[in-house]
């Protein structure tokens, strides 16, 4: 059992408990819409064209930069479009996607298999394989795994985050029950890649079957399985590290700087697929649950499958729905199920549409501060965010907020606090961007003024110099003329004299 705990956090009962979570294989989609916008790393550039036929597992896009992340085709078929499509982001902004029309054959590309056992490869080679498979953090963060491993080189502890603390999500739970061998193997691969000598798998104590499943298949005495008390936000990386090791990583610092690498258990399974089976990341397990679905279930679906397809298999009712990608606490509301599953889609909530509760004023009860796991003062952040006083909000450590939503959950006035903090952070980002732009405009304007002044001065100097040169020339010319005239006059005088002499 874990020895430490963190202040705050809340206990949320599982709203839609399932007897035994299992993974159903979703059928191949007819069309896959693959997102090019990566959560970290910018937009990937396609390396295929419209009309081209691609095979499953073929690289179809790469992010630019020194260590590109890959996007693979999740089905075989023909590229029918490379265009902007709506992405599950609260702004409703479209982003570039590649659309593949399936040919139904699921023909795999010829992927180069590594013929050596991973233990005989160097850590760099293993990390390279992870990078080529396009693996990112599957718990929802989406950070390129290879970059995280490289940063954590020489780590002493690997923590596998199998807490799945957000209530209702069960994809990691079922992964651990159905693929325990693969997960343990994946941990060994990861330990080899980052150099960690010790690994801890952290599971919340409401998942005893998953715990037993892993205990049964773990024969590696450097890997330990630890149970931690069930509490929401125990799965946040820094809070999990505090719970297991008692270390508080300061804000702005990374766990890698303290010799700790933390990875989600879904990412670990994907690493197993990539390094041992040479399969790139083309599918993931998604939980479909909510008050509007008859049977909450997990599906292993190909990336790019539309939400509507998997939701359909869960038998939703006929009422009006409210759809959310991600968990009920930290997810993103989306207006309709026409979006597609991407690498970080861990859950789709389909709830019956309910009227929103009335928002009242803040009565300063500080229930929010009592539950904040980052030990902040959400009421202060709320007042300053509401009056758009971002500087004051930053003084109260706005950037430490992990937007977990614990404060929303307990507020008696139903104030959407975490959304205010998202707003404040977005406003801060926008203001910094605008400040940078105006500073640049100011610089350019001032340089232009200077340039024009300088040109004017240079021209004036040039004119003055020309004038001076002209004057000198005129003076010289005048002299020469004078000389000429003098010579002529002298000659004339000589002629006259000689004439007079001759007469």
């Amino acid at each position, binding site marked *: 059992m874990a020895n430490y705990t963190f202040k705050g956090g809340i206990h949320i009962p599982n709203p839609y408990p399932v007897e035994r979570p299992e993974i159903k294989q979703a059928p191949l989609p007819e069309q896959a819409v693959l997102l090019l916008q990566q959560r970290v790393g910018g937009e990937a550039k396609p390396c295929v064209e419209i009309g081209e036929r691609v095979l499953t597992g073929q690289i179809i896009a790469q992010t630019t930069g020194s260590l590109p992340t890959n996007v693979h085709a999740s089905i075989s078929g023909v590229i029918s479009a490379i265009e902007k499509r709506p992405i599950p982001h609260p702004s409703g*902004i479209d*982003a570039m996607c590649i659309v593949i029309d399936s040919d139904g054959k699921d023909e795999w590309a010829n992927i180069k298999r590594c013929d050596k056992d991973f233990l005989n490869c160097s850590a760099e080679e293993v990390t390279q394989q992870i990078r080529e498979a396009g693996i990112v953090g599957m718990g929802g963060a989406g950070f390129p795994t290879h970059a995280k491993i490289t940063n954590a080189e020489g780590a002493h502890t690997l923590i596998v985050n199998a807490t799945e603390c957000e209530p209702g999500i069960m994809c990691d739970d079922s992964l651990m029950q159905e693929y325990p061998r693969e997960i343990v193997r994946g941990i060994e691969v990861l330990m080899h890649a980052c150099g960690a000598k010790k690994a801890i798998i952290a599971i919340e104590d409401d998942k005893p079957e998953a715990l037993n499943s892993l205990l049964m298949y773990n024969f590696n005495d450097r890997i330990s399985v630890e149970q931690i008390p069930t509490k929401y936000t125990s799965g946040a990386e820094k809070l999990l590290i505090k719970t297991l090791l008692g270390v508080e990583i300061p804000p702005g610092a990374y766990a890698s700087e303290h010799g700790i690498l933390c990875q989600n258990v879904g990412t670990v399974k994907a690493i197993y697929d990539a390094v041992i089976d040479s399969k790139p990341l083309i599918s993931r397990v998604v939980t479909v649950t909510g008050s509007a679905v008859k049977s909450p279930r997990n599906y292993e679906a190909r990336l790019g499958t539309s939400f509507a397809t998997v939701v359909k298999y869960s038998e939703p009712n006929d009422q009006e729905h409210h759809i959310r990608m991600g968990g009920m606490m930290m997810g993103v509301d989306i207006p309709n199920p026409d979006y597609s599953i991407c690498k970080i889609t861990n859950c789709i909530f389909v709830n019956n549409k309910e009227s929103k509760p009335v928002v009242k004023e803040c009565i300063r009860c500080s229930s929010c501060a009592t539950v904040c796991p980052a030990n902040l003062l959400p009421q202060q952040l709320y007042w300053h965010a*509401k009056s758009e006083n971002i500087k004051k909000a930053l003084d109260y450590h706005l950037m430490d907020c992990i937007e977990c939503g614990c404060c929303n959950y307990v507020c008696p006035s139903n104030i959407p606090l975490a959304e205010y903090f998202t707003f404040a952070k977005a406003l801060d*980002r926008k203001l910094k961007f605008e400040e940078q732009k*105006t500073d640049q405009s*100011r610089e350019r304007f001032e*340089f232009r003024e200077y340039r024009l002044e300088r040109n004017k001065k240079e021209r004036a100097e040039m004119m003055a110099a020309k004038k001076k040169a002209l004057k000198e020339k005129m003076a010289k010319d005048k002299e020469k003329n004078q000389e000429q005239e003098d010579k002529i006059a002298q000659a004339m005088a000589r002629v006259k004299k000689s004439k007079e002499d001759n007469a």
Partner: protein
Amino acid sequence: MIESVVIFSALTLILGLILGYAAIRFKVEGNPLVDQIDSILPQTQCGQCDYPGCRPYAEALAKGEAQINQCPPGGQEGADALAELLDVETLELNAEHGETKPDHVVYVDEKLCIGCTLCIQACPVDAFVGSSKVMTTVIAKECTGCDLCIPVCPVDCIYTNELKPTLGTYVPDLKELARG
């Protein structure tokens, strides 16, 4: 009676000396007010305020020679921010100076450009690249949307492109949040 006069005079003297000392010891150098005003202005350098650039307008404001509502690119928020900084009543934007247009940049229609360089000379932030009888284009990143180039172009080949919020500059609506 005489004691209270003496006491209060002494207090006045002492407090006056303290204030005088503080005024000298903690004096702020330079005129930061102009810098503060300039940092609020949008740096579009368009001249719609009737001053040749944002800094001259800032200087005029600091001297009290201009009103706070002469800057359309700053919008009403800019005027309000100036009012707060200068501790005056906020005013509605003066429509005589132009209307606030949404954030935009300009671009050159290359089919029509004749390379006359009039736009290059007009741009207050040198956002054009080109030369005489050579194709001219706009560096969108540097363009402030001041529109000074549009009227000078003899073939009317400069158009505007509205800037949409990107994933990096999107800000949720505060009023929506307050409604819940």
